[in-house]
């Protein structure tokens, strides 16, 4: 619980320089954008503000949200991880296998963590030790992980045979479904990790100026491996939720384009593509913005085929605004 305390201490750190509008915009543009979109949505559709709908949005973004938290760390370090969607599927498939084989939910969850972290660790080794560009390394992982998942599941879906497993994604605490709670807790933990610990500080330093970071006696390789492993671990948490929700995972259609949604949320959240600059809070609101847009288009009966167009537009607008600083 020391965590919540240090979070409170963090708050005043953000606001002592208050004053100029331009500063407010450059620091909090994503929150302002969120508020505008939120207000617009509530005006456009009366059903939007309904509590159930709000919780529904949170529920829908929780999986991508957790993946996007990991993506933020990777992108802050100056890299990118294209493999998240495929690794999610691989983790899902292996987790269900472990679940069915052992009948233990705990062993299934542990398996998920291990598979996700190993995939991330391999990404990290390729990037840090192999000096392979992260785009290429994780592109390779993306193809490989999906292929293994398809092979194991013979191209189809596999379902869990242990009854309690679906509780993870479908039970709730008061009005909040577990995935929402997990997403919020992960956001807080990653926030603390990135802003209150040396790991976070070092990730920012590496993303901003890798050579200077190395000359500052930072173990650049280790940090990078840690970054990708952590992203993998977060993907495995998302994979558990995804699998638990329907008690099955499809090796061919689950996790498709998750990397794009996660990257979109990170970019909308104001993290710089080249690293070193960005905030976890930004990603959190980036995820919510994407969720609200999806929700609005559903409420307004926009063709699902057009939703990608709107998403694309929003990403580009977000980047254009960020360029102005």
């Amino acid at each position: 619980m020391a965590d919540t305390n240090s979070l409170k201490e963090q708050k005043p750190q953000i606001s002592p320089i208050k004053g100029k509008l331009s500063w407010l915009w450059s620091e909090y543009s994503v929150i302002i954008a969120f508020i505008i979109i939120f207000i617009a949505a509530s005006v456009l559709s009366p059903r939007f503000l309904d509590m159930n709908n709000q919780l529904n949005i949170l529920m829908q973004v929780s999986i991508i949200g957790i993946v996007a938290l990991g993506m933020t760390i990777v992108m802050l370090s100056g890299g990118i991880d294209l493999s998240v969607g495929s690794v999610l599927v691989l983790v899902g498939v292996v987790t269900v296998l472990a679940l069915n084989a052992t009948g233990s939910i705990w062993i299934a969850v542990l398996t998920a963590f291990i598979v996700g972290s190993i995939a991330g660790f391999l990404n990290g080794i390729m990037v840090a030790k192999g000096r392979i560009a992260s785009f290429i390394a994780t592109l390779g992982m993306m193809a490989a992980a999906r292929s293994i998942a398809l092979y194991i599941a013979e191209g189809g879906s596999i379902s869990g045979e242990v009854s309690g497993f679906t509780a993870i994604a479908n039970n709730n605490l008061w009005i909040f479904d577990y995935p929402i709670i997990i997403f919020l807790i992960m956001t807080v933990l990653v926030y603390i990790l990135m802003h209150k610990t040396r790991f976070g500080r070092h990730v920012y330093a590496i993303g901003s100026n890798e050579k200077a970071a190395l000359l500052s006696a930072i173990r650049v390789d280790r940090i990078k491996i840690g970054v990708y492993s952590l992203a993998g671990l977060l993907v495995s948490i998302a994979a558990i939720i995804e699998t638990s929700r329907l008690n099955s995972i499809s090796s061919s259609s689950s996790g498709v384009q998750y990397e794009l949604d996660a990257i979109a949320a990170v970019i909308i959240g104001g993290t710089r593509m080249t690293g070193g600059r960005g905030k976890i809070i930004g990603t959190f609101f980036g995820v919510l913005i994407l969720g609200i847009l999806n929700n609005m288009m559903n409420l307004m009966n926009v063709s699902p085929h057009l939703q990608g167009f709107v998403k694309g537009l929003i990403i580009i607008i977000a980047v254009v605004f960020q360029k102005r600083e």
Partner: protein
Amino acid sequence: MTTSPFMTMNNIDKSFNGVSVLKKVTFHVAQGEIHALLGENGAGKSTLMNILGGVHPFDNGSIQINGEEVKITNPRAAQEYGISFIHQELNVVSDLRVYENMFLGSEIRTRYGFLKVDEMCQKTNEILAKLGVDIDPKEYVRNLETSYKQLIEISKALLHKSKLIIMDEPTTSLADHEVKRLFGLMNNLKQSGVSIIYISHKLKEIKEVCDRYTVLRDGELVGNGSMEEENLDTITKLMVGKSISQERLIQKHTFGSEVLEVNNLSSPGSFSNISFTLKKGEIAGFTGLAGDGRTELFESLFGYRKTYTGDIKINNQLTKIDHPRKAVKAGLGLVPKDRKENAIIKDLSVIHNMSLSSIGHFERMAFIQDKLEKERFQYYKEKLNIKVHNPRVTIDKLSGGNQQKVIIAKWLEVDTDIIIFDNPTQGIDIGAKQEIYHQIVSLAEQGKAVVILSSEAPEILKICHQIYVMFQGEITASFKGEEVTEDEIMSYATGSKREANEIG
């Protein structure tokens, strides 16, 4: 020598966000002269030049060229009036050929849009011949020395028929022979009627090449005149507002025990057979021309480069260093050269840059405590006289001298026994330079062992007990600091002399 002023800036006022940076500055440049624009960092030189180059608008005043009032609203307009700005960071594209760089943005094309390569090469040749240099227009720029890259910028200016060229610290990254070449070139340009505004911190160079000077301090014109009539001390005084001694800053004092012993360190292509020792309280200087291998030597010692052979003993213990982390553990610190590329993390705040290498000092239960960091920074802010209002701004908002002080604070906080300073006063104004020298000397007095790498012999002479001169990767001479002159150092640094016996 005096001719009609080619360019006049009259009573220029400029303020940013209500802070006045130029106050009624008047600045004349005659045709065919080399005019030094002097002042410390933050004196307003860059702002004045950016106004002339059309980057910033001015609030009040006027600019005249050849007696006619002009409005320079953007860099393109400046070019049309014959003004070219050569920035400190050279804007050449290394992966293009010489002629392609020359004509970048103004390529000569046939009416079908294809490039007229032969014509461009020929014109490039003409201009290069005028400047008295012989390079193949089709050579790739990445294969050229830095001074030639500068030359390409100058040629570009000539291609656009510039009458006035602004050079911002052109010699920072040049070796001595390259500086000579540049000065020759500047004199040729002067003969052909081109005016040059020359911005530099190196007063000796200015004395050598400039005709007149203008000094700014805190946004105001504090003096101008002819270079020949003035001695450097007077100008220095004008720049900083007080006189600065050129004397040696160090006292003779007794050194402590030996902390560093290097034996036969070699790295193919960079340096060979380097041996020296360093004691507590000693300041050792390594000097030489650019490319003499000293930076590579100490980057290897610091574990940044791994491919070297030889022994390093720290505190009499044989140490294998293959990562900067191990170097720090063993007691080595390095303030690198080229601050922007190697030292500052521009997206981190001033405080976070200070604490980056010693984060353990500010952690409690694995969490970084902002308060501890802030208090510590306050201490260094006063100790090193770092000028910053809000230390939470990113470090790139600070002037060069203040950035360097933050980096020094970072290494003071790490508190290693041995601190290496590579080119510690690069691009820093005289006032801040003095402060940094005093810090270095006081470090040694506290018992630290210090190594200074610098290509500026006067700097080395000023603060070093022991001086090593390097030439092509070898130590060619070593002297006691008080027993040698700048000329002697130069004769070893250029390879014209060589100490016969091995240095012990």
